[in-house]
């Protein structure tokens, strides 16, 4: 466990910045990767977005005022980068967000880094029907096993609203899986 305040201080000092940044990357790369991966689905895209996230963090670390926890700031940047990435991707391809989601799921079937079977594909199709926020809450809670308090900080949403979102998401996914 790293002392967050000390790390932030070191990140802001030029002489200790490089070492501190390496610690930051090593501490958060896996958690952020899986968060991003569950939004963009494809490994190469997740790798790109993860790097962009850390580049953005590095460029803006002086502007981090410490009003929120470091990990929640990182999650916010990762979430924004992932959603922006998808928007740009659909714009570049000249297709709607909906169509892009469908294509992303279809591509999973031939993805060498996707080891899921029919039920996992169905799960992705069910997740694609949820609003972005509900999908985020579900994956953060169900797969990343984050505490509501931590998700609340990262998504800037109250714990009560998150619980309601999660409950709704579970019900929708379950009924999708049962009906399809």
């Amino acid at each position: 466990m790293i002392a967050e305040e000390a790390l932030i201080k070191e990140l802001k000092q030029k002489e200790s910045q490089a070492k501190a940044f390496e610690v930051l990357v090593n501490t958060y790369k896996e958690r952020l990767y899986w968060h991003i991966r569950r939004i963009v689905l494809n490994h190469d895209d997740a790798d790109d977005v993860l790097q962009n996230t850390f580049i953005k963090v590095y460029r803006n670390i002086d502007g981090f005022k410490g009003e929120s926890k470091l990990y929640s700031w990182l999650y916010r940047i990762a979430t924004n980068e992932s959603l922006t990435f998808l928007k740009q991707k659909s714009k570049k391809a000249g297709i709607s967000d909906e169509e892009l989601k469908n294509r992303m799921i279809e591509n999973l079937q031939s993805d060498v880094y996707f080891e899921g079977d029919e039920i996992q594909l169905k799960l992705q199709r069910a997740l694609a029907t949820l609003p972005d926020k509900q999908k985020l809450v579900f994956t953060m809670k169900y797969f990343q096993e984050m505490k509501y308090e931590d998700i609340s900080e990262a998504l800037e949403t109250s714990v009560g609203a998150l619980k309601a979102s999660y409950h709704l998401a579970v019900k929708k996914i379950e009924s999708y899986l049962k009906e399809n």
Partner: protein
Amino acid sequence: MFWSQIKDMKKDKKNSFNTPEGYFDSFHDRLMARMEKEAQTDSVIPKSDGFAIPEGYWDGVTPKIMSKTVKENGKVIQLKSYRTFYYGAAAVAAVFVLVFGINWKSTPTVAFDDLANAEIDAYFESNELDINTYELAELVSLDNVELNDVLEQDLDAENILQYLDETVDDIDELNLDYSDYE
């Protein structure tokens, strides 16, 4: 005998049962935890989402990120430096135009403004700048931008009313003073 004892207990409202200390205080939390656990156990939602990563990915990703951040420090290219480059390029182009324009009068006259704009336009059109809307918004102050600067056609009251008419369900809800536009 037994029944009389029960009657006495009822009369005294004495409860001989006991609960562990703090049992009722923690009941709600324990119930919620159990419900959550049962919801997960009984759920049809799979436990894994099937995503995998290439072997050795975690070892390679840190050096990749470090080479694009810390080791690139000082090489980070911001929009402002692009702008400096354009000014520099435009200045060099201007010198060339002036020098060659004076020495070879036979060459057709090329206006400095046209050349600079054309070059800059061509650069923007043929190069994809890695600048997203957030970064642009950080650099371009809204105070310096008029709405009509970013629109292809000037926005006048008629356009606004037509847009509202097409997109807003009940235009009356906007409480517009129509007399301004008549």
